[in-house]
Structure formats: structure tokens, C-alpha cells
């Protein structure tokens, strides 16, 4: 067992974990943050993607102890209010999900992509950036539409705030 301290969605958390416990199981089972999903458990599908110190990772392929001292962002924390984050809203508007199994990972991936590339994103860049996220039911066109739209709206909002 190891004692770990980390920040999750802005809150400090201190827990004891088994050294071999995966980050995804720590989030889901110990903390009840079940928005992060396990699709494949083999580092392929991206359903488990969360952000650790600002970098997206597959939480099924990282140990909870490796997140000690880090700041973790999960789908539960993307909106700090009762309304949806602009990327979630765009997914809804564009019908970018059906069963929703892949959605949390995709939203975290999309937010990271928009933060890095801004509204300059091209369709091709978005398609490439989704390489590590599999969606088995919606198809990717609406997902890409949603991400491009969210990138534009977030840019307009940022400019208005200036």
C-alpha cells in the first residue's frame, strides 16, 4: 500500500492505494467518479482518457501511485457550474453521441486539443487527434463537427471576454 496525494477536479485528495491499482479503478471504485469508462482495458479505445497535469492519458494504463502529486481532470470536473461545458454542449447539438460510452474520453481529448490548437483547428487535424479514441456507434463525422464548432464558439467567447 502507498499513500498518495493528488488534486482531482480542483479538490485535494489523500488516500491509501494498492501499488498495483490502476488510476481508472481508483477514480471509479475508490472515488465514485464513474464518468470515466473502461472500454478495452488494453490501451486501445480511449474510453478511460483523463487529463493528468494537463496531458491526456489512458487511465487504464497508468497506476494510481503514478498520479501521486499530480492534478487530474475527469469528465465530472469539466464544468464547474450546473450548465454543460461548451464541448459537451456541442456534442449534444451535433448529435455526436449515441450510447455515450466513448464520450467522456472524447470530451477530455477535445478540450485538450482545443486548448492546444485553438480555433485554427482543421478537420484533418481533429480527425488525426482522435486516433486514440474509438467510437463504435456514432461514426466520427458528427464528433468532428462538434469539436470544430466548440473550438469556434470558445474562441468567440474568449475574444468577447477580452
Amino acid at each position, binding site marked *: 500500500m502507498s499513500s498518495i496525494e493528488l488534486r482531482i477536479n480542483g479538490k485535494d485528495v489523500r488516500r491509501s492505494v494498492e501499488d498495483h491499482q490502476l488510476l481508472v479503478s481508483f477514480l471509479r471504485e475508490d472515488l465514485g467518479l464513474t464518468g470515466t469508462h473502461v472500454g478495452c482495458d488494453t490501451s486501445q479505445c480511449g474510453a478511460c482518457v483523463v487529463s493528468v497535469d494537463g*496531458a*491526456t492519458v*489512458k487511465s487504464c*494504463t497508468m*497506476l494510481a501511485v503514478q498520479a501521486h502529486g499530480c492534478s487530474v481532470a475527469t469528465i465530472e470536473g469539466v464544468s464547474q457550474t450546473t450548465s454543460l461545458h461548451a464541448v459537451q454542449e456541442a456534442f449534444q447539438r451535433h448529435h455526436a453521441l449515441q450510447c455515450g460510452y466513448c464520450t467522456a474520453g472524447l470530451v477530455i481529448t477535445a478540450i485538450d486539443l482545443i486548448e492546444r490548437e485553438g480555433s485554427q483547428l482543421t478537420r484533418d487535424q481533429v480527425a488525426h487527434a482522435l486516433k486514440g479514441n474509438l467510437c463504435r456507434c456514432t461514426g466520427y463525422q458528427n464528433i468532428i463537427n462538434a469539436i470544430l464548432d466548440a473550438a469556434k464558439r470558445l474562441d468567440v467567447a474568449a475574444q468577447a471576454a477580452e
Partner: protein
Amino acid sequence: MEPFSFHRLGSQQARLAALEACDDARYISGGMTLLPSMKLGLVAPSDLLDVTGLPGMRDITVEGRSVRVGAAVTHAAIADNAALNAVCPALCDLASQIGDRHVRNRGTIGGAVANNDPGADYPAALIVLDARIETDIRTIAVEDFLVGMFETALHQHELVTAITFDAPDIARYEKFPHPASGYAMAGVFLARSNSHYRAGITGASGEGAFRCGDLERLLTTGAPLADIAELRFDDLDIFDDRHGSRAYRENLIRVLARRAAVHLKA
């Protein structure tokens, strides 16, 4: 996964002490290869020693054209490093083609060379760049380091600390990824320095990455690029499996080699 103890190493003394104290210790860097193999039960170490916090392991230094990349530098950090992009953009481009963003954010160059997967990308580049692999006890030329499929010259518990090389005048990596796994079905790294060419090929052979002397001679002597179509690989163990026949892979090498050559000659 079988239970194990995890140790975060902060110094070389701590590393040596941990090795002394543990039964069956294994280094972990990005964990992108090790954790999946542990989940499958292929390896079950008693202790994992996290090397990513050791001094100097996460630094990239570029002085003139000489480059040093710490073993625990992630693929994403290599892809995005401005100083490295200025002297050897082809290596950054190669790193940006590994797996997906999430994998690149954790996987490291040291873990990749220690693993020496025949489908891995870096080996093609490192043999062309005549890289040196620095460990805690010695410096090994990359051609001596990469022994064969999943095999290196590392002794048990020898630690890769850095990879060093001199940037070439120009280079290019062309990869054809396996549509499902993303690993190279074939990847060709080509570089030119002082009008001399070097070529490295990965993904296509059970012997791991290899240099292609015929391609190097063809380019260095200024033969027409159309001659690349005549390259033969008869004396090599080229993969012939359900993902692609031998003839298909050989052709893939020629096509990728030509693309890379067109880029260098332009």
C-alpha cells in the same frame, strides 16, 4: 495484475539500494509497454522502480548540432521540443507518429529502445543517426545495442540514461502504420550529411531495424530515383504474415524509401 511494490526513484543511490533490496525488480518509465504486458501476465515483477524522476532523465539538450535526449523524455515532449525541431525535425515528426496522443504523453524514448519492438519507430532513426545509448555504466553504439527482436545489449538492471547523436543536414521519416495497431508495417528513415546518405528500415523484419546499404549507395552516387524500384531484400528475414506478405512488405519499403528520397532531393 499480480501485486507488486512501487518505488519512485529520486537518485542513483536510491536506485542501487532498491535493486539490492528487491527480489525481481523491473524499471518502469512510461509504462505503455510494461503495464499492458503485466496485465496479460507476461511479466510479473515483485517491484517496479520508476525511473522518470531520476536526475537528467527528462531533459533534452541541443548544443550546436549535438543532441542529448534523456531516457525518460516522452514521445510528446520530443515531438514538441523547439530546439530539437530546429536541428532534427525528422525525429520530432517520427515521435509525433507513435501511437496516439495519450500514448505519446506517457511513453518514453528510453523505454522504447530498451524494449526494441521490431515494429517500433525510433530504431530506424537511431541507426541512421549513429546514436549512442548512454547507460549508468557505459556508452553503447546503437548498432551494437539493438541485438534483435525484443533484444538489446543491456545487462540485467542496466539503466538507459540518455540517447545522444549529431543532427544530420537533412532527414525524413516515412511510415506505413498497421491500420489497427498503429505500429510500423514498414518505416524508412533517411538522412543526408555532406552528400552522404544513410537509410534505416524498421517494422519489416524479425531481425529488427536494419540499414539498407544498397539504398544508401544508390542515393549517394546520384542514381535515378526510379532505381529504388529495383531494390532487393533477398538476404533479409522480411516478415511474411497475415498482416502482409513478404512481397507486399518489400514493396512497401521501396515506396516509402522513394517518398523519403524525393523529400531529401527536393
